[in-house]
């Protein structure tokens, strides 16, 4: 790698956020020397005219890791992936990929990643068969015919896709087209894979199969995968770490469990709001096992608990003593809760 430290100090906003957010296990933490960082992006900036798409995007992707880039619409996820895929040029910042500087070695870098962008419905030649499409794209990468055939064979086996290899791209369903585009991204056996919303618009069964494949593939082949997705259950299931991006800034990178833990409690007891008198609510909030109270929506109040059994028992006791008849339910904090929580905090900080 270039070996030069970042020339630009991080902007003030992320530093402030570091102070208020839990310590992230990724970007800001120590990484063992033995663990190879395949991709390192530091302080990447990008503007479209006057519009700022990326303000300060920094992340690292390690060997054999799935890193999910998570953020609201327009946060800059796709822009960052396109910069890494050399489809867009960044305005500032430093990107190193497997020893190559993105500014100086773009051609070398293009051999090292597989890219699956959005809009896969129309991203191969409609009148060519799956095999013909893959042969063409493989030839552009300098692959020999025999290598392409072997890779098609291997990927078709992974995806159980033999029956569709001789079909024209236009004859495939949405899920099958998506599979072809993922196969194309993996055809040259790249060490790095970028997937921009890979299961967008797919039915749950196809999406599940693709997820299962990706997980298995990354583990078996020791690939590194950068993923963007709006499907939080997918991110939770697939990713080793999650990077949160908001308004063009990556502020948190951590494991899904740590992100959830940062909400304050891993589990909560939710009680029907209309049936809960203020005095009872105050008593519950005062319990040792209750960490916080939060109004989830118009109907429910969530009480975060340190231990679900002890917490539930204590809350039920209070409800009985106050003779309150209210419905209650148990809720495990999901990545969605964590996402809403973190993005809410980030928005507040940005607005200030």
């Amino acid at each position, binding site marked *: 790698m270039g070996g030069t430290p970042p020339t630009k100090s991080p902007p003030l906003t992320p530093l402030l956020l570091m102070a208020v957010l839990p310590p992230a296990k990724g970007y800001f933490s120590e990484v063992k020397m033995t663990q190879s960082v395949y991709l390192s992006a530091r302080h990447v900036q990008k503007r479209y005219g006057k519009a700022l798409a990326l303000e300060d995007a920094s992340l690292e992707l390690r060997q054999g890791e799935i890193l999910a880039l998570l953020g609201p619409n327009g946060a800059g996820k796709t822009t960052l992936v396109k910069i890494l895929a050399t489809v867009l*040029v960044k305005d500032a910042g430093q990107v190193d990929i497997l020893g190559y500087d993105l500014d100086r070695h773009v051609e070398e870098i293009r051999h090292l990643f597989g890219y699956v*962008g959005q809009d896969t419905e129309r991203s191969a030649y409609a009148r060519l068969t799956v095999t013909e499409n893959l042969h063409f794209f493989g030839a552009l990468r300098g692959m020999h015919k025999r290598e392409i055939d072997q890779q098609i064979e291997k990927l078709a086996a992974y995806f159980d896709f033999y029956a569709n290899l001789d079909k024209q791209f236009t004859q495939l369903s949405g899920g099958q087209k998506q599979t072809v585009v993922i196969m*194309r991204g993996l055809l040259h056996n790249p060490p790095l894979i970028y997937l921009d919303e890979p299961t967008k618009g797919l039915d749950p069964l196809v999406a599940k199969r693709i997820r299962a494949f990706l997980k298995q593939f990354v583990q078996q082949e020791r690939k590194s995968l950068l993923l963007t997705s709006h499907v939080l259950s997918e991110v939770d299931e697939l990713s080793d770490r999650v990077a949160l991006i908001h308004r063009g800034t990556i502020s948190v990178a951590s494991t899904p469990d740590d992100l959830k833990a940062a909400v304050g409690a891993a589990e909560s007891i939710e009680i029907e709001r209309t049936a809960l008198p203020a005095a009872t609510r105050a008593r519950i909030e005062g319990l040792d096992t209750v960490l916080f109270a939060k109004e989830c929506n118009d109907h429910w109040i969530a009480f975060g608990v340190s231990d679900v059994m002890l917490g539930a028992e204590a809350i039920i006791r209070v409800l009985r003593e106050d003779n309150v008849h209210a419905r209650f339910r148990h809720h495990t904090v999901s990545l969605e809760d964590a996402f809403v929580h973190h993005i809410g905090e980030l928005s507040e900080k940005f607005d200030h």
Partner: protein
Amino acid sequence: MQTVSALSVPFQSGVRPAAVQTLSRPTSAWRIIRATVAKELRMTTRYIPNLVGSLANQAVRVVFFLLLSSAISIQGLGVSGAPLAGRDLFISFQSGLLLTVFIGATLWGPIYAVRNDLYNGTLEFLYSNPGSRYAYYVGSVLARVIVESALFLPLYIVLAVYSQASLPDLLMVLLTCTVIMVALTAMGVMMALLALLWRQADSIAQVFGIMFEMIGGAYLPVNAFPGLVRYLAYPLPHTWGYDLIRYYSFGGNWQTLLLVWQEWAIIIAFAIGFTLASRQLLSKAAQRAKRNGLHVI
């Protein structure tokens, strides 16, 4: 805590670690051209109505010019200042038509490639690939030239029969077409770059293309135009190509705009100059498109 940076990565700058394997490797422009030609030809066979339509289009043009040449004459452009009419006028039209077929392939091949890749959604993927973009466009042109040869051959035979030109003259017609094709392929790549940067440039380029064809002498010889139009025609490679083809089609009995060797020098200079310029512009335009995120995003 320590900020992780590239310093902690045991990679050597600019050298791929030996442990990192990929099947992607640098490849020759020739291989990309071959792959692109094969791809385009396959696709053409799956859009047969388009091919039939193009053939019908050319047949209609030939018949139209045959009828037109029996109905009109152009004063002062024939042999020894005689009117250009009848069989000679048809040969003149047919010569223009012959080159127009290949101009269609070369000038519009790259722009069609960009348009098709936009339609197919493959442009973004191609631009994240390590292969030569120039080779890809040249491959698209070659494929179109091969397909258009199906149109060219009948036109060429008609010309040979009507003009009764000698074999060397007919071969010179082919050579002229080839050199003009090289020049116009490069011009076509430059027009494709405009399409890459601005979607609307596609339509505007088509208007200019038709204008170039007309003032370059595709239908009427440049000598038939008023002075100003003639000056507009001189900077176009088409002009000299049409003029040379007419010269050889008439077995040397055609008043060229300049001396024949000068016209050859001009089209060869165009071919070399445009090729060099378009190669430079291709990378610059792609960079600009990627910076602005106009078309490729």
